[in-house]
């Protein structure tokens, strides 16, 4: 399950964009968007998803439960 950004809560501050190790985050119409194909939940990079850790608004960068879990390559 990759992460997603709840657009209605995103302030567009861009703090998450440079923190993403997968360059999965881009700006779209003033708010930010995570490309689910690129997101690895930061597994293998960091202890916690970087977007969630740096986001100033609680519960805005969250796991997208509608998508299958990210599978690290063996």
């Amino acid at each position, binding site marked *: 399950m990759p992460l997603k950004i709840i657009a209605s*809560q995103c*302030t*567009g*501050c*861009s*703090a998450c*964009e*440079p*923190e993403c190790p997968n360059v999965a985050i881009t700006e779209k119409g003033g708010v930010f968007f995570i490309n689910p194909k690129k997101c690895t939940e930061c597994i293998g990079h*960091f*202890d*916690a998803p*970087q977007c969630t*850790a*740096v986001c*100033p*608004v609680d519960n805005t960068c969250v796991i997208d439960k509608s998508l299958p879990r990210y599978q690290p390559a063996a």
Partner: protein
Amino acid sequence: MQQSADYKGCGTSGGAGKASCGSGAGANDLPPHIWDKVKNHPCYSEEAHHHYARMHVAVAPACNIQCNYCNRKYDCANESRPGVVSEKLTPEQAAKKVLAVASTIPQMTVLGIAGPGDPLANPQKTFKTFELIAKTAPDIKLCLSTNGLALPDHVETISKFKVDHVTITINMIDPAIGQRIYPWIFWNHKRYTGREAAQLLTERQLLGLEMLSARGILCKVNSVMIPGVNDKHLVEVNRAVKSRGAFLHNIMPLISAPEHGTVFGLAGQRGPTAQELKALQDDCEGEMNMMRHCRQCRADAVGLLGEDRSAEFTTDKLNSIQVRYDADARKSYQAAVEREREAKAAARESQLATLAGEHSEIKLLVAVATKGSGLINEHFGHAKEFQVYELSTAGAKFVGHRRVDLYCQGGYGEEESLSTVIRAINDCHAVFVAKIGGCPKAELAQAGIDPVDRHAGEFIEKSAISWFQHYLDRVRSGEIQHRARGDADIRQGAFIAA
């Protein structure tokens, strides 16, 4: 200890009366190379802020810490407080805006990057902006304001880009207090909370301050005064930053209203009263230079401190502004400003000379309505703020300002706003204005505040000293009795800029 020690040590001499060293200091109070750096920086020199303007460009939206007095979700064009902007800019847009403002406002001498997040959490955007401006408008001073967490990593770059003024917001040096102000920080790819977060933050802030001081970069420290949280502690903060070479300390009142949606606002945490703020600033003044003219402006403010012309320079409007950057025209305009400043200083000195030999225990505050240039040139009803001076036989000293709602609003709500104005300057014995109507005049007098309009268009300090002499004469002759005034309110609600 630090290279910078040479411009300190004047703190105690800046006590009662003499305009305090540092932000209130004039050419004769500072070493020439320091005076040269601050003389036309409105934030670093109180004297300069009557004449010179600054602008902030909002190129740095990201932040790396969370503060309980900040809410990044909220933005309103009608509100003025740090951390709030109406539109974010790219470095290229920012550089264009700077040129447009510099050609429209020739007394704009300083470009600052203050957010709306933290400039050093957006290092590429911040330094790209500085690079572009240094190329196109080399006469403009560069300045930045940071929470300090990332500062040690960027001191070399700051020095390389000749950023001569850096402000660090330091609200505590004790992590036990810090954890009540900062819920978390993001550092080295990790979110830290609680005491650990505050410990890391204070270490990084003080290290950054030492590194800047060692390179001779002027540092101002901003502290937010939060009653019951860090108000008493700020005296220790003051000592700690002084010993690490800070040039100026700016203690600001907490801005906290429930509608801002901040943790403090929602929790009902109050800000200080005018007297509480002044008492703390006075306590710290013996230790070092205090800034008292801060307007806690937005991260996209444009103009003199206390006025906000940012609405004239929105991206839409920038396209229609003809940008003709004329360095010579700016220079000659600024030379005229310097002559005006000299005339003002000469008038103050000659009036002050007449006070020589006078001794009185009386010390009191007066409010002044001004549009700038150090003159009493604003109507009472048009004033959006009043500047406050402390008068004694040692002279007139700027000690603060009070924001108010316009009294004159075209016929409605006036009585209510008049009482707000009176509450805001309730600790003052007199208010100096260019003009005032009969009705507010009577109400002010009734509230014990002398409305003075006979010095319209004259220099503030000269007029205030002359009024004070007359006041002392009347007290001496028994015509009036000197009485202490009460406390005053610091405005908390949303500030309507224009």
